[in-house]
């Protein structure tokens, strides 16, 4: 077996998405916001279709719809006209402008265009936040975080700290996760700004009407107060340099607490402990109980899964968290792969699993599904854990796929998958165990109905 990552020129079945898609999703989690792509029409339409297939919710992403001519002479006029049209039609509170490969390549200076635009327009225009997101540099996660940083940079104000107020920068989590995390924060009596928040905008109720802009998202008023919070909790162990959390710390002196994505008991404990310290309250009994039941189930089921081998793939921070979770339940992660290239993946996995795993898994960045598939052959995994795009591999290897994260395109309810905290871990754990049992049952020639 090769211990080295394959090093191909071409990419087959990428394990990443493009940068502006992440930015659009982040902008979608802000009150009254419309995401806007400065580029050609195709990119926006493709991203909408991709996002819709996961959330089963409408998402309007406006575009400058640049034609070849515009691209040659510069996209300024189209950008300005587009902003006017979006404003007129949607009356947004905020327009989140992300660039694309095209406008980055032609060197459009969006900052300057916006400056001119503000000078040229009379009357009130929405807030404009811009972020530079060429896809030839990074993945959708870099786009996501860059958009969050841009929002904070532009909208968070400083001032005297408000006691009991914190910020939570959870990264790209599911609507279900967000709702659960909000409940947890409430239980601690913490007043938190969670940025972004797509729990209503991308998982809304049936209302028999079409909202131009869905209600929900992080309120602008609360984003403004982020510089006055007493602390920021930021999820993600592979984040780079100028994160929104780092910015709040440098610019406004808000203490940054950097945690992993809380999946599994170890990582969740850190999260709950942090909340306890920040709120000055003990961990509420109901969560202690929930943790207790989780441990109880770990014990009940440990034998069924012990020593099973798993391949984990997807966004880097999610991979780190899932790997830590698998390690703590006795499953052996054999390959951890991501299309991202933070340069921090292996170290983050070692940090979180070093005391449990006798041997570190193979960890590779910049992977695509061809690479993963090729390595998988000799690793003989028992299960896969990641998003829908690993399905062809799970089919080929005839092993179960535990669907997590984004995109979920071959099952319903991707937006309702709970991953975080004790409750999310319980849900994932039951899935892992039951997938293993189901396999054992269907592979058996006897077919017991009592396992």
């Amino acid at each position, binding site marked *: 077996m090769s211990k080295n990552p394959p090093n*191909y*020129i*071409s*990419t*087959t*079945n*990428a394990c990443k*998405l*493009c940068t*502006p898609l992440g930015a659009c999703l982040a902008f979608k989690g802000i009150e009254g916001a419309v995401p*806007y792509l400065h*580029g*050609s*029409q*195709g*990119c*926006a*339409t*493709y*991203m*909408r*279709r*991709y996002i*819709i*297939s996961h959330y*089963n*919710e*409408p998402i309007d*992403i*406006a*575009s*400058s*719809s*640049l*034609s*070849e001519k515009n*691209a040659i002479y510069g996209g300024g006029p189209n*950008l300005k*006209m*587009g*902003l*006017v*049209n*979006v404003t007129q*039609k949607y009356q947004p509170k905020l327009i989140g402008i992300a660039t694309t*490969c*095209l406008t980055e*390549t032609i060197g459009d200076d969006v900052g300057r265009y916006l400056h001119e635009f503000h000078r040229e327009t009379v009357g009130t225009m929405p807030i404009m936040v811009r972020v530079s997101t*060429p*896809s*030839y*540099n990074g993945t959708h996660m870099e786009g996501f975080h860059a958009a969050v940083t841009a929002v904070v940079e532009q909208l968070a104000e400083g001032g005297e700290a408000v006691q009991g107020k914190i910020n939570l920068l959870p990264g790209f989590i599911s609507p279900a996760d967000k709702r659960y995390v909000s409940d947890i924060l409430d239980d601690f009596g913490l007043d938190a700004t969670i940025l972004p928040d797509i729990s209503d905008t991308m998982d*809304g109720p*049936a*209302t*028999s009407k*079409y*909202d131009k802009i869905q209600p929900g998202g992080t309120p602008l008023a609360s984003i403004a107060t982020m510089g006055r919070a007493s602390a920021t909790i930021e999820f993600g162990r592979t984040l780079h340099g100028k994160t929104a959390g780092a910015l709040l710390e440098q610019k406004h002196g808000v203490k940054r607490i950097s945690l992993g994505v809380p999946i599994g008991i170890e990582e969740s404990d850190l999260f709950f402990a942090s909340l306890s310290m920040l709120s000055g309250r003990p961990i509420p009994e109901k969560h202690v109980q929930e943790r207790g039941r989780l441990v109880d189930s770990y014990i009940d089921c440990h034998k069924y899964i012990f020593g099973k081998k798993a391949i984990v793939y997807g966004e880097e921070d999610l991979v780190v968290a899932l790997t830590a979770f698998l390690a703590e339940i006795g499953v052996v992660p054999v390959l951890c792969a991501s299309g991202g290239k933070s340069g921090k993946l292996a170290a983050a996995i070692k940090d979180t699993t070093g005391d449990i795993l006798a041997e570190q898994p193979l960890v590779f960045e910049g992977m695509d599904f061809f690479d993963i598939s090729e390595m998988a052959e000799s690793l003989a995994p028992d299960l896969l854990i990641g998003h829908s*795009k690993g399905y*062809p591999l799970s089919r080929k290897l005839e092993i179960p796929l535990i669907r997590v994260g984004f995109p979920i395109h071959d099952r319903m309810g991707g937006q309702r998958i709970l991953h975080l905290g004790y409750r999310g871990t319980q849900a994932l754990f039951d899935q892992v165990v039951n997938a293993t049992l189901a396999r054992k049952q269907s592979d058996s020639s006897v077919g017991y109905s009592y396992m």
Partner: protein
Amino acid sequence: MEALLEDRQEQVHRTGEQPFTLVCNKDSLAGAVSQRACVFCGSRVVLYPIADALHLVHGPIGCAVYTWDIRGALSSGPELHRLSFSTDLQERDVIFGGEEKLYRALIELIDRHSPKGAFVYSTCIVGIIGDDLEAVCRRVEAEKGIPVIPVQSEGFKGNKRAGYTAACNAMARIIGTGDTAGISPYSINILGDFNLAGEIWMIREYFERMGVQVVANITGDGRIADLARAHGAALNVVQCSGSTMDLAKIMEERYRVPSIRVSYFGIEDMAQSLYDVAEHFGDPEMLEKTRKLVKEELARVVPQLQKYREALAGKKAAIYVGGSFKAFSLVNAFRLLDMQVVMVGSQTGTEQEYRELAEITDPGTIIVDDANPLELTSFLEEKEVDILVGGVKERPIAYKLGVGFCDHNHERKEALAGFQGMLNFAEEVYSSVMSPVWRFAMRTKDKDLVTETSKTIVKG
């Protein structure tokens, strides 16, 4: 009704309310959320089903990854088309040019998969950085001995239509290179069917029952070798004018292959298509076989449609599809179900097509080009529509409004063409319109929940 953006007014028409005028093939308005895609998307749709070709997208990752295995185009053999190949251009490539990377990627992938040919798609930024695709393709073609064809599909060069043209030009380079020996005088190419959910297999079977030889599927379940000898066919049978009509024109000019336009959607159009082909060949025996075939199929399908017709009569339908040609068949198909079409629109129809649509639809029907979500919403509400036919991007709009939905796009996994397809279509419409779930969508407010029944139960 939702006010239209001023610049959009000339792209909407109401049948019978004013003399027909509609402006189309216009660039989408900046800032209006168009449902349209790009040139690349158009090319990709047309060429995608060619299953033994390598489809390499030269550009940054997004363009390739968003088109990975999303279409329901089936293959009876190789499945190379279902993989998403990209050069995944990085900053360095954008600065210094991506030709070398493209060359090496092509060599690597051809060695790995031994495809029968390769299509190399250009994307927006390739158009800007100025890579010479033509030269790289020529070089690889010489080295590897298979056709390596550049597709001029830079996204910003227009809309999907331009992409269809680029795809046709690419295929035209392969056509004419193969041996045409042994092709029957009663032979056709099937153009413009993409074998979604196995549709082309059904269509082929009809033609074979008529005694017609199918030379090339263009492009559903397509093969490079079939394309190469497609010029030997006696007739091009073209569905969906938008996507492959250009190729039929080229073949008419270069190889004198005549063409007819057909549609396989709805039983009338399906039967008419078969008759048109039989009449073209003018063979009495074939005509007889066709009659028999149609009779058999109708005898099987029509009685089964009855149940759907009874349930669906009078319900209102709206159509919003990619190309307007399909819209004609859908209007007929809904008529057959006794349903009323109240809105028809498409992303890329031509003025002529919209004019004809205006002629065949009832007064008051809304005809729209390149609609955006807000417009669609206002039309669905205004007309109190029961079901919308469209693609994935339209689905959540319908559902949010409590309106049924039928997927009639390239992503669908149900066969809707042919005689059987009409039945499947009726079933699809029926299963959405008749579902009991809509009753809950109407009661969403607290005040709706405390009903007379609940009051009686609680108060006794």
